[in-house]
C-alpha cells in the first residue's frame, strides 16, 4: 500500500482548476474549410447552369452562372473569416460531484477590429455539448455556460473544443479545433447513511498528539481577543488589531470540541466490502464538514495526520478520492 499518498497530496497542494489557464494551452489552430452539403448542391447547380448555357449558347445564363460562382467564392472567404478572428479566450470546467450537474464555461473573443462574428457553433466534442453564439461584436467577448453530467468519478481531460460556422449562406463549413491541456475532477457522489465519527478535542489531542492550535475548530461564535502566545494558533492573529495596536492579538472562539470529525483512513477502508460506497460516504462526511465549518481530521496509515482546515485542503482530498482505486490499497 502506498502509505504516503495522503501526505503527498496534503503537502504539495496543487490546484488544477484555474480561471486563467496556462498560455501554452491556448494555442489556437488555424481554421479549415470545406463546402457544406448544400454547398455541393449549389456548386452542382452552377455546373448545370453552365451546361445549359453551353448547350443553348445562352449568354445570360452564363452571366447568371458566373454571378453565382462569384457568390460562392465570396461566401468561402466570408465563412472562413467569420471563424478566423474568433478565439476561445476562456474555457473552464469547474470540478463537480458525480451524478450532479457540472458546467462548462466558454468565452469567445472576436479579434476583428471591424466585423461581427456571427452564428459560431461551439461544440465540446467529448461531452456532446453544442450551442450557437448568434453574434460577437468586433473586439468583444461572449460567454456561454453549458451544463452536463458525468456518471463516473475521476480525473478528466478537458475535451477538445470545436468552433464552427456556416455563416452566411450555409455554403461552406469552416471549423477549428483546439485542445486545452487541462484537467478537471468529478468528485465522488455525496451518498451514505452513516453518522460522521465525531470526537472531542481532548480525546483527539491525546490520541494524535496535537496542539490545540492545530485542532482549531472553526466555530463562528467569536468571544473576544487575547494576547498572542507561542502556543496559540498563529492563524487566529487578528492583523487589523495588530495594525491599530502594534501588538499581536488572537481571536478566541467558543470551542465546539465535540464537533471534530476524525477518520482513520486505513481502518475505514479495511472494513469495506464496497469501495465505491465507502468513498461516497467519506465524501459526504468531508463535504458536510466543509459546509458546517467542522474540523475534519484524517490519519493516514503511517500515523501522519492531516487536518482539513481550509478550502484548498478539502479540494485536494476530494480530488484524491475522485481517483482512488483498489490499486491504492494493494
Amino acid at each position: 500500500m502506498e502509505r504516503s499518498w495522503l501526505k503527498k497530496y496534503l503537502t504539495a497542494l496543487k490546484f488544477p482548476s484555474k480561471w486563467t489557464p496556462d498560455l501554452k494551452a491556448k494555442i489556437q489552430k488555424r481554421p479549415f474549410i470545406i463546402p457544406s452539403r448544400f454547398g455541393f448542391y449549389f456548386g452542382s447547380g452552377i455546373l448545370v447552369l453552365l451546361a445549359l448555357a453551353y448547350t443553348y449558347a445562352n449568354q445570360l445564363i452564363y452571366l447568371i452562372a458566373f454571378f453565382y460562382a462569384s457568390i460562392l467564392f465570396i461566401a468561402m472567404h466570408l465563412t472562413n473569416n467569420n471563424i478566423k478572428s474568433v478565439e476561445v479566450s476562456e474555457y473552464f470546467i469547474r470540478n463537480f460531484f458525480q451524478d450532479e450537474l457540472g458546467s462548462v464555461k466558454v468565452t469567445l473573443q472576436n479579434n476583428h477590429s471591424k466585423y461581427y462574428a456571427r452564428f459560431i457553433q461551439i461544440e465540446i466534442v467529448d461531452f456532446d455539448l453544442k450551442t450557437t453564439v448568434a453574434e460577437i461584436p468586433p473586439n468583444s467577448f461572449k460567454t456561454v455556460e453549458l451544463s452536463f453530467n458525468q456518471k463516473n468519478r475521476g480525473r478528466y481531460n478537458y475535451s477538445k473544443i470545436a468552433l464552427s460556422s456556416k455563416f452566411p449562406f450555409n455554403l461552406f463549413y469552416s471549423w477549428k479545433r483546439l485542445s486545452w491541456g487541462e484537467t478537471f475532477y468529478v468528485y465522488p457522489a455525496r451518498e451514505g447513511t452513516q453518522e460522521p465519527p465525531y470526537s472531542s478535542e481532548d480525546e483527539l489531542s491525546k490520541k494524535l498528539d496535537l496542539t490545540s492550535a492545530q485542532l482549531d475548530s472553526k466555530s463562528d461564535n467569536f468571544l473576544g481577543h487575547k494576547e498572542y502566545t507561542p502556543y496559540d494558533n498563529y492563524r487566529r492573529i487578528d492583523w487589523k488589531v495588530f495594525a491599530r495596536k502594534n501588538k499581536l492579538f488572537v481571536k478566541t472562539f467558543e470551542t465546539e470540541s465535540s464537533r471534530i470529525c476524525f477518520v482513520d483512513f486505513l481502518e475505514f477502508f479495511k472494513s469495506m466490502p464496497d469501495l465505491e460506497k465507502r468513498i461516497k460516504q467519506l465524501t459526504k462526511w468531508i463535504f458536510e464538514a466543509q459546509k458546517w465549518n467542522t474540523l475534519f481530521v484524517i490519519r493516514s496509515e503511517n500515523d501522519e495526520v492531516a487536518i482539513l482546515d481550509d478550502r484548498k485542503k478539502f479540494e485536494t482530498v476530494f480530488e484524491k478520492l475522485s481517483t482512488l482505486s483498489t490499486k491504492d490499497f494493494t
Partner: protein
Amino acid sequence: MSRLLFKDYLGLAICIFTSTLLLFPDVPIWCFSLGILFWLWRLFCHVFDFTIPSRKITGFLSFLALAVILMDFRTLMGKEPAASFIIILSGLKALEFSDDTEKDFLVLLGFFLISSKFLFSYDLMYLILSLPIYAILTMNLFPHEWLKGSRSAALKYLGKVILLAIPMAATMFIMLPRITKTLLEIPSNSRYGSSGFSDTVSPGSISRLSQNNEVVMRVELFHNRFNLSELYFSGLALEKANQMNWTALRNEDGFTLSEAPSEVDYHVVLEPHYKNQAFSLKGTDSMGAEGLRIYRDSNYNFKFDTYLEKKAFIQASLGGARPKVSEAIINRNLPEPELSTLTSEQQTQLHDLVKKITDSSRTPEQVSKAILNYFGSNRFTYTLNPGEQPQLNLYDFLFKYKTGYCEHYAAAMAQLFRLSKIPARVIVGYHGGEFNPLGNFWTIRQKDAHAWVEFINSQNRWVPVDPVTVVAPQRIELGFNMYNSIVNELLTEEEIKNKLNGTDTFSRLSMWFDSVNYRWSTFLLEYDFDKQKDILRRFNLSLGNALILVLVLLFTVSVLINLFQRRGIKKNFSELCFEEINKWATKFDLQKKETEGPVTWLQRIANALPERSKPFLPDLEKAFSLWINLAYKPTLTPADSKKSLNEIRKIMKRG
C-alpha cells in the same frame, strides 16, 4: 407545421410562386396548372389546418410527373420539359415544406426556376423583374434567426456581397473562354406555329395579328437611309393559289449557304419564332449569324437550317441588281387561278375586268399600274378587322365586299396578275415598324405583319408592288401603329404630330426602355466566342492567358482579403505607451515584472541604470509620468492621449 411556410417564409414563397408565373407562356398549360395546383393545395392545408402530404406522397407525385413529361415530350433535355419539371418539382417541394432545414433546397429550386426563364427570353423586362427575386432568394440563405432579428443588417450585408460579386462576375464573363456553338438544339413541337404566320395565308389570317404587340425583331440600319414606307421585310414567298388562299411551295431553287456579309448594312435581332424563316430587307444579298446557318435560294429568300428557338443576331448586307428569273420559276408562277367554283356569270364578269386591265396595258409594269388604278378608283376600302374569311373567293372580294386587310388585296392582285398571264406571287413578311431615335433602330412587332405582291417584269426580274399603297396610303406611309391610332382613336392633328415626334413622356420612356433592352440583347447575343477573342486581343491576351489571369486575379483577391483584415484587440494609448517604455527597458534587461507597479519599476530602473545613461533619467521620469497620467486619468481626450503617446515615443527614441 403547415403554417410554417406562410408565417416565416412568406418572401420565399412569393418569390417562387412569381417565378412559376413568369414561366407561364413557355411551358405547356397542364404543367403550369399542375404547379399552381400544388401551391393551392398548400394554401388549402394552411387555411384549414390540414395535414400536409408526406414525403412519400410528394416523391411518388414527382416520379409520376417525370413520367408524364417524358411521355409528352419524349425527352427531358429540351428547355420546355426541363422548365416544366422544375415548375412541378418546386410546387411539390413547397407542398411538403415543413422543416427549416429544407429551406435551402427550396431556395435552390427557386434559383433554377427563375433562371430557366432566361432560356426562353433575354428580355430586359424579365431580368429587371427577376433581380429582386434573386435578391430575396439569396437572402433566404442567411440563418433564419438573423433575418428575423435584424433584417436591415442582413440587407446591408447582402448588398455588400452583391456589390462584390457583380464586378467579379463581369470579369469572368468577359475573360473566361466560352464556346457558344449550339450542340443540343432539341426541337419541341408544342411551340410551332404559336406566333407569326404559317405557310398558308388566307383572308383574315394576317389581320388576326393586328392586335399582337409581341416584338418580332429589331433592326439597326447603318449606311442607307430608309423611309418607313420602304421598309419591307420579306419572309415567305407564296406561289400556290387556291381562290384567295395562297400557300408556299416546297421548291428546290438551289439553296446555298449564305456567306457572312463582308460589309454589314444592317443588323437584325430576331426573336425566336419557332420557324425557319429569316426576314430580309428588300435587296438583301447575304445574311450571317453566329451559331446559326442561313441559306438562300436563287430568289434571295433566306431560311435558317433549323427552327429558330432562341434570339438570333443576324448581320446582313444589301446588294445590287438581282439575276433574271429562270424559266422554271416563271412557269411555276403562271398557273391561272381555279375559277370553277364561280358561276359562269361571275366568271364572265371577272374575265371582263381582266380584259379591261390588259387592253390598256402591254407590259407587266403597266398591268400593275392598271390593277392599282382599279383598286384606287372603285371604292375599295381597307379594314383592320375583316374577320376570318377562308372561303372568300376572288369574285366576292372584287365585286361584292370590296373591303379587306393587306392579305385580301395581295391575294386578289396576284390572282389578277396571273389571270393577265403575268407570273406573280404573294410575299408575306413585315412592313414598317417603330423607329427608336434614342437607340437608332426599328422595332418590328407582330402587328406590322404585312402581305404584298411580286410580279415578274419585262426584264424577267421580280418586282414588288403593294396594293395597300392605293387603298390606304397612310398605312404604308405612317406605319401600322400610327394608322391604327388615327383610325381607332380619332386623334386630332396635334396629337398625331406629337405621336409622330414621340414627344409625350410615355412614348419617350417606352422608347428609352426599348433602346436599353435592344442594346442589352445585342450585347449578350453579340458577345460570342469571336467577340471575346477580339476583346482579349485588344489587351494582347490569348484565351489561355485570360483563363490564367482570371485564376491569378481570384487568388490575389483571396490573399488581399486575408491581408487587409485588421485583427487583434485594438491597444489603448496606455498599453502602447507601456510597450514603448518596455521596449527601451529591454535593452538594459530591465523589463517590467508582473508584480511591479510603475513607480517601483522606475525606481528599479533608476538604481540599475549604467552610469553613462544616468543623464537620461529626468526624461525617463517625464515619460513615466505621462504614461501614469494616460493610464489612470480617464478624462484625457483622445487628442491629448495621442500627444502624450507621441511625446513618449520621442523621449524613448532619444534614450
